[in-house]
């Protein structure tokens, strides 16, 4: 099995506070959609923040293509090809859609092709083209999430980490977000998804990871996770859910 990213035995937390992650393990394979599920406080978002450099890895290591990401700042991790879309507040509400897109390319050393690249992405997301001069904060939740996800594509990243893209969205819109995510995966972008809505998240993923109390409990093909009776009882709202 080839692995793109490997999180081994990672401990991390906020400030001087207690460890939220306590020996988490994760293996990310190229081109696949990985869904991390688990109850509130399990450390799902914390894991993404530890990978992208927002939180310090206290113990263990994060290896990306065999190279440690430990101690790097978020902008350095980004330049290696890992984009993180944080929960809910990934946008600049009083900048236009187009300006938000430009911010997506802020880390590029050469911005001469940036406008062309944004045009290409706008072609694929007509709503963003239509709303290009509108303030991002005035768009609907689904449109904002679309922008946040589409914006990552400017950098042609290897890995996109999404923290609860479904949060606060109507079920129909949630499926649209997962469709965009699958489309990104089809283009070879590896996805690392954290979802509170475990059932929908797993149904749209290739690989499932169950996190609880900062530890990885289970990791396997998403189908297996969905059908595992223990996991159904604990995290998917009982056997009737599947």
């Amino acid at each position: 099995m080839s692995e793109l990213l490997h999180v081994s035995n990672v401990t991390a937390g906020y400030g001087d506070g207690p460890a939220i992650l306590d020996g988490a393990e994760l293996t990310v394979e190229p081109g696949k959609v990985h869904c991390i599920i688990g109850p509130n406080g399990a450390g799902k978002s914390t894991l993404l923040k530890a990978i992208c450099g927002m939180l310090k890895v206290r113990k263990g290591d994060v290896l990306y293509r065999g190279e440690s990401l430990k101690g790097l700042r978020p902008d350095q991790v980004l330049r290696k090809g890992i984009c993180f879309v944080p929960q809910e507040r990934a946008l600049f509400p009083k900048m236009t859609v187009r300006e938000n897109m430009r911010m997506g390319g802020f880390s590029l050393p050469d911005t001469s092709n940036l406008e062309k690249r944004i045009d290409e992405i706008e072609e694929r997301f007509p709503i963003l083209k239509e709303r290009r001069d509108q303030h991002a904060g005035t768009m609907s939740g689904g449109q904002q999430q679309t922008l946040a996800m589409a914006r990552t594509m400017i950098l042609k990243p290897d890995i996109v980490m999404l923290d609860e893209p479904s949060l606060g969205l109507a079920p129909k819109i949630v499926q649209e977000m997962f469709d965009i995510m699958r489309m990104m995966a089809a283009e070879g972008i590896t996805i690392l998804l954290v979802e509170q809505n475990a059932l929908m998240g797993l149904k749209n993923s290739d690989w499932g990871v169950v996190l609880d109390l900062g530890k990885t409990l289970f990791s396997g093909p998403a189908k297996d996770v969905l059908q595992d009776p223990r996991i159904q009882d604990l995290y998917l709202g009982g056997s009737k859910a599947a």
Partner: protein
Amino acid sequence: MADILQTLILGLALGGVFALMGSGLSLVFGVMRIVNLAHPVMIIAGAYVAYWGFKLYGIDPLVMLPVAIVILAVIGILLYKLVFEREARSAKYSEMTVLLTFAVAMIVEGALGGLFTNTQRVTSPAYATDAIFIGDVFIPTGQLYAGILSLVIIAGLALFLKYSRFGYAIRATTQNREAAELLGVNVSMVALVSFAIGIGLAGAAGSLVSFVFSFFPAKHWEWIAVLMSLVVLGGMGSLLGTVVASFLLSVIAAFVGTYIGATWSTMTFFLALFLILLVRPQGLFGEKPELA
């Protein structure tokens, strides 16, 4: 009729200057959540730069303006490095900065008093006491120059924020610090440069103020409430809001001064501050207040 027009013109002329005085305060709050009570004393410091340039070497305050910007921006950088940078990650940053900047204001006021005494000063280039007459109404030339130049500087700032790469970084950091950092913005650098620009703007405002108002070191206490009312009415951190609020309040203050009495004119700003906080605490162009 002529009275009304005259009052309006005087109000508008001062509005531009107030807008420049408030813009640096607004920028610094927007980017760093620093409530800079030391902003007005920095304006006084800028006024002294222009004053001494004129007094000692006969240099026009308009020429001293870029010098004041540079001197004050350097002071801003030192101040930020010494006082504000280390606390930037604190959850209580905004609250702390109120006390820190209050202390800075006292220290700078004391230093200015020690160096230059508490005598009232005013820079007096020829145009400061001149006026242009159009029919029955007159426009004081000094205020006209100061007002126009203020608007030019603010327009320059707005264009810089809107179109330059660093401007994008400043706006992004103002609106969503975490997301800006995740997209590769060096937010500590943005904070430092914005602070330098903010204090530099105080220097620019000071040069203009030096021939519009008489000043002395302790004068800044009077301006704190005036500038706070502008920035709060405009919406903390909104440049456009600060400009609109400045014109609005200074025109109202001019009318109060003409028709009710000059002593009540300054009260306009204090009253406005109370009313805004009661009725619309986020101001004209601001976000809903975030207390956390």
